[in-house]
Every structure is written in structure tokens, then in C-alpha cells.
């Protein structure tokens, strides 16, 4: 399982990714979590199980949706309160909930 996170330059999402890795480890879930800049989205989307996007990129939704359409990867925006609190557990729940669908 690979979860891809994107934000502006991959800096703030890096902190979330770190928190998610900790959360996954404590739950015993085997998962690879990557944080990347949105300009690297297309280079990393290929094998991703799901895509989480920083709330500050909400204005790009249409574009992101179109460019990843062919890959059939489920995506969602990380809710602002989870992002703001760097809540790894919460973000992991969000990711798992869209993967199952």
C-alpha cells in the first residue's frame, strides 16, 4: 500500500506524512507514505493506493482530478483541522476510508 500526499513544495505535507508513519507503525499497518510537491504529482501517482492533498490546494481540485483521471487513484483533501493539528492518526483514517471504497 502506498499513500501519496501532496502540497505546494512538499514541506508541510512532510510533517503530516511523518505523523502518519508514526500512527501506522503504532497500529501495525504496513504502508509506504510519501510527501511530494504538487509539481511531482505525475511522477509519483502511478502505483499509489490513494492520494491525499493539502487543504491549501483545494483551488486546484478540478485540475488535479483531470490530470490523474487515467490512474483511477482515489483522492481527497485532508480536512483543515487535521492538517492544522498535524494529526497523523486522523489523516491515516481519512486515507484508509477512501482506499476501502
Amino acid at each position: 500500500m502506498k499513500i501519496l500526499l501532496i502540497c505546494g513544495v512538499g514541506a508541510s505535507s512532510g510533517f503530516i506524512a511523518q505523523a502518519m508513519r508514526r500512527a501506522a507503525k503504532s497500529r501495525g499497518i504496513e504502508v509506504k507514505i510519501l510527501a511530494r510537491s504538487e509539481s511531482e504529482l505525475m511522477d509519483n501517482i502511478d502505483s499509489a493506493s490513494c492520494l491525499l492533498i493539502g487543504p491549501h490546494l483545494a483551488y486546484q481540485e478540478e485540475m488535479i482530478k483531470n490530470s490523474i483521471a487515467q490512474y483511477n487513484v482515489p483522492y481527497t483533501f485532508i480536512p483543515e483541522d487535521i492538517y492544522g493539528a498535524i494529526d497523523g492518526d486522523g489523516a491515516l483514517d481519512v486515507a484508509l476510508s477512501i482506499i476501502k471504497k
Partner: protein
Amino acid sequence: MKVENKFIVWMKTSFSPKLTKLCQNHYVAAVQKSIMTVLPIIMIGSFITVLTLARQVTFLAWIPDLSLINQFSFGLMSIFIALLIPIKFMEEKSSPKFKNIAALTSLGTFLVLLMPTFDGELGTMNFMLDKIGTGGMLCAVFVGLITAKIFYEAGKHSFFKEDTAMPDIIVNMFDSMLPVMFCLLLGVISYKVNFDIYAILRMAFNPLGTIAQTIPGVVLIAFAEAFLYSFGFTWILFPIQWTIWMDGIAANAAAVAAGGVASNICLMETYNGMFNIGGVGATLTLVLLMCFSKSRKLKSIGRVSFIPAILNINEPVVFGAPIAYNPILMIPFWLNAIMMSLVGSIAYRIGLVAIPSAVNQLWYFPTIIQGFINSGIGGVVLCIVLTGLSLLIWYPFFKVYESDIVTQEVAKLSK
């Protein structure tokens, strides 16, 4: 409804959708993504700046002079951009058919338009350094976008019917040859008749660059950046800012190398390396206030955003506090952007603090360290002064917001 609420609703329902549409424009997106892709290689130049500084210390003088690395990273910026734009554009359009050949054609056409001179005897082709570096960026963007568009349109048509007897390789070759020929021909014709697109674009951009380098220009850009950010738009201004910044620092470096003084103050080194203490809107001191807040919510968000804030990353606090779409914290956020850039610019302009003159894009270094790298002790002092000022600006607004949140928390508990 209060005026401030009306304003927020208007921003949400009218302004934001329009801006959103603009950002989804494929041309805008291609430029933005190309620049983002170039960032890591440009950042190498910043390490060279640090090394060069270290070499001035006697016991570190053994470090070799590696500044040539700058020439082959930062100094080739326009070439990188010319190559990347068609690739990013095609990816945006989900039409990768000709993306590589479009990139190569864009590069070829761009180089012709720089009007190189040939020396038959030496067997050399000569380019102005500035044109392949920061100076040629507008031309690179222009050529990249046009080439991308031409190839995108060409990709929709074919000379052959789908059931043609011709092998695919021949079909593809012919189909891509026409747009290659077309682009290069345009370039070569411009070259032959001496139609200097590079010079025209520079001239058109010149007024904007000049205004941006004045104190009001610097302040206006800082405000616009914070304003857009507070409504959730983070990277919109970046391509324009970046072009101005790169031009500015290249000119400063050239001026100092020629024995003159640096004069441009609209730089990445002044914004991300000085004004934006803790991120846009100088949020480091807000995070500090939050760390010691009476509100449980604010305190916990303050604590998790502290390390990001030291590294000038403030998305967590902007969305966590939140500042975005929150009138009470938006105002000091804008005010800080204005005051930091205003006081900072004045300090640079009147010569209290040395204007940065070497590339340093290490924006994730604490600003006080960046201040030292860019401007020596003066930079450190300015950073301390600005940090204090930002604390004064945040404090009253934070107190009002905090008491609101504490009231809410108490109400929740007593339920």
C-alpha cells in the same frame, strides 16, 4: 450581517471561484509547475553561497571555490524552463503524445531566439550568459508555451487515416515533423531578420520589475501574497514573484562583482529570508503565543506547529488556528506582511542593513540564520527587531481570539 462577514462571503462566493478558474488555466499551471520543478537545482546555488561565506573564515579557507557550480545550475535557468514548460503543459492536458519532442523543439527554438553569434574560425556558438540565466526566463516561458500549444494542436491531427497501411513509426515521425519544422522555422526567420523577441519581452516586463524594486512595490507584493494566502491561495503569485526575485538577485550579484553596490530589494532573500519570519505573515510569534495559550485547542496547535514555524512552514498554523477565512486573525496576518516588508525595505534602502547580493534560497533555514548569511550582523539585528514588531502586532488580536475560543471551550465543558 457585519461588514467583515459580508466581505468574507463575497470572497468565498465571487472572488475565490474566479481566481480558482484562473489557476486552473493550463498555461498558468504549466509555468508554475515548471518553476517548482527547477527549484531543487536552483537551491544548489544557495549552498555554494554558504560555502563561499565559510571560506572567508581563516580556518575554513581550505574549502575549494565551487562557484562554477552556480553557473551550471542557477546560470542555466532559462534553458531548464524552456525544456520543462512543454512537458508540464502536455501533462496538464493529459496529452503526453509529443511531450518529449515538444520539449526538445522548445529548447532549440529558444536558443535560436537568443540570437547567438557564430565564430567560424574558432568553431563556437556564443550566448550571452544573462540570456541563458535569469534574463532569458520570459523568453523561455513564451517559447515554451507557444511550442507546447503548437504540438498539442498538432497531436490532435494526423496526415494518415487510422487504417493506413503505413507502419506506426512512419506515421508518428511525419506527424511530429511538421510542428518541429514550424517552430524552428519561426525561430530561424526571427534570427535572420533580426527580430529580437528576447529584447521585446524584456522591455515589456521592465516597468513591472522596476516598480517591484521600490519600497511600495515590495510592500504591495508582500500584502498581496498574504491576502491571497488568507483565502487559501498559496502559490499563485509565485511565478511572477520568482521572475522578479531571480532577476533582482542576479543583478545584485553582477553589480557587486563589478565593484558596485547591490540595489534590488525585491528578492527571495528579503522575503523568505527576512520578512516572512515563520512563514508568510510572520507567524512565528503567533505560534509562540499559542504555545502558552489558555485555550487547549490553541495550545496544542501551537505546539505541533512550532517546529514547522522555525523552518518557515506555516500551513499548519494558517489552517489550524485558523488564520484562513478567520477575520480576527486575518487582519494582523496582512498587517504583519505589510509592516515586516515596510520596515525591512527601509532598513535595506537607507543602508542600515546590507542588501543581499548572493543567491540564497534556503528558505527553510530560520530567518535569523538566513539574515546572517545574507547581511551579516545587520541581518541578525533586523530579524530580531522584526520578530519583536510582529509579536506586538499579533498580541492584541490573538488575545481577542483566544478569549473567544476559551469561552467556547468553557461552554462546551459545562454542557
